[in-house]
């Protein structure tokens, strides 16, 4: 069964890129446009990965991560932060809030792939193994 990923970003074009790219790699992708939507979907469904933006309407990424990590039913879900906030201080904050990997925008396909490999322990394109 394919791994299920929730992509949370208020930017339509980013969601679109991730939807297409992740689908190509064989993942099942669901989307949310803001923090509240994301938490709602997380509550209904089980996900294998959360790719989350920080600056979003309604609830920001920090809040989403904190709620996920404090909710017993979903606290173990891996989280990749994908944000335009590229200062070091934000990165540390991201890890503090429970991110497993912190990616800054703009990013390349390869960087995304690297993050996924770290999360799942294997390359979805089957090109290389993570040591």
């Amino acid at each position, binding site marked *: 069964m394919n791994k299920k990923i929730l992509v949370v970003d208020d*930017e339509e*074009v*980013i969601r679109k890129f991730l939807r297409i790219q992740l689908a190509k790699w064989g993942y099942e992708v669901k989307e949310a446009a803001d923090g509240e939507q994301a938490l709602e979907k997380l509550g209904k469904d089980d996900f294998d990965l959360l790719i989350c933006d920080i600056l979003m309407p309604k609830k920001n990424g920090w809040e989403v991560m904190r709620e996920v990590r404090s909710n017993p039913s979903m606290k173990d879900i891996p989280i990749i932060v994908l944000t*335009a906030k590229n200062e*070091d201080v934000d*990165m540390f904050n991201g890890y503090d809030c429970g991110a497993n990997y912190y990616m800054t925008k*703009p990013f390349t396909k390869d960087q995304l792939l*690297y993050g996924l490999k770290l999360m799942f322990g294997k390359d979805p394109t089957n090109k290389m193994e993570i040591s």
Partner: protein
Amino acid sequence: MSKEDKDRDRKKVILLLRWTAIIVTSYLILFSKGRVTDLHLSHLLIFGYIFSNLLLTFLPKTWFSNPKLFYSLVIFDTGLVSFGMYLSEMMTTDFYILFFLVIIFTSLSRNFKLLVTLGGVTALLYGILLYSWGLLTSENGISYILRIPFIFIMTAFYGYIVQTFTKETQKQLAISEDKYQGLFENANDGIVILRNPQLQIVDVNREVERLTSNKKGELLQKGFSDLFVSEEDEKALGYFEEVMKQGEGRTDSLSLMRKDGVPLEVDLSAKRIDLGDESFFQLIFRDLTEQRRLEKKIRESKMNLQAIFDGIQDRLSIQTPDYKILRINKAVIQHHHANYEELIGKKCYEAYYQKSLPCERCPVSVTIKTKKPASSILKISEGDTSLRISSYPILDEKGDLRSVIEYVQDITEEQQLQKQLIRSEKLAGIGTLASGVAHEINNPLAGIIGMAEIALEEETFKNKAYLKDIISCGQRIGEIVKGLGSYSRIAKKEEQSLVDINEVLEDSLKMVRLAIKASAVEVVERFQPIEKIEANIGEIQHVFTHLITNAFQAMNSKGTLILSTRSLKDSMEVKVSDNGVGIPQKYISHIFDPFFTTRNPGEGTGLGLNIVYRIVTKYEGTIDVESEENMGTTFTIQFPKRREDS
């Protein structure tokens, strides 16, 4: 009674008594032995006598107060009367002249009582002699009897006159003595009278009592040197030897000994005074305490002024309106490598700039003309120096220009710093703007890059190189935005805490490892326990993340990275060294400059190491780099240890 009345009375009395004397003498001469009819020398004498008294009548009355005239009269009258009696040839055995001579000499003693007593005794003796010789009962008996009271009257008459003189002289003496005593006692200066040559104190005035806080009685009979503090005995005696030689002398180097033991500085002048066969020294003391206090105050304020003057690090000089240097501070001496004496009195343009005319645009010239402050910035050709010269007038009470203060500041460095500041402020401004819009730029940028990458995989796109260009340009924008964002952050004052550098190194390494595929890099950690530093943890992390990333990139993901920390005497040292490609020697001195990059466009902004440099220097640290091409690079950072008191 006024002096004028006295003079008139004395004239009347003298004239009256002389008339009496003339009448009695004339009678004695004219009525003896019947010589009245014949002209005789004695008759001339009577005329002379009368004439002299008439002459006296017309003399001004003040002359009668003159004792010299009076005594001349006494001698003249006595002589005349005696001579007249002798000429009457009636006293062949007469002692009359002898008695008169006694009166003359006694009158010179100026003693009234003695005169009257002597007159009485003489008259009595004469009467007894005449009686014993039986002359009183002879035919000329009446003449003899008349002579007896005459002796007494003449004596009393002179005695009276003498007494008036004596009284008056005494009175005047008393008055002048009073005056002198008043002056002496109430003088504002201390006066001491010493007997010469014993140098013994015979009199002191009240001011001396006050100055020495001794009573007069305690000072009298003491010696000269007892007046002064004992340490100055030798000096005092030396001074007085000089006074004895010269007859007078002055000194201000001696101190009076006060009763309470506190010495009192005085100005002393001494003079020898000879009175008859006695000789004295008069010493005049003036209290110098106030003068010394003022002198000290003036000296202190002078020194203060000089200290302030010298304390100013910029060049200061004071010049006359014809440019002559009156006064300079230390900065001037140091700047011109000259002595104080070499510069003072010279014209400023000659001494400072070896010119023959005042410098162009010099504000001192302006102040000399306008008497108002002036200032201008001058470029001096030597060494590209910029000077700000300001001048201020010093006016006298009339408002005329007395001198000009010239204040010279070297503003070369200041101007350079200002330029630098403007540049870095510009950069920081750009950075602030960039970080503000970073989010706005990065989101669409992520879309551009992502979508281009998806398109790249589409079979339908023929010219894939174009898409690759889009992707790399997008990444370049991303790098620039990131770099500029970091640039602005350093300018901000951020929260600081105690940062453990060893921990930061571990964290930074982990993060870089997450971001860069570098499985073939061996990392050696040589950490020694070191003190924490007070800093913003994000900034310190930025420094090491950047250096470690650089190292990984330089090694092309394979090689050895050595991270080491150690504690030195005054600082903590961190080394990040790799055995990568190294930095070409010609670039080494520029690697910390902003916007310097050896990479291809799109690979670096040239801000990275500049940011590192700025963070390290912000915490008063130093950063050095050693590198050899194809051998590797080592960055050495030192942070100062925190001071105990901070």
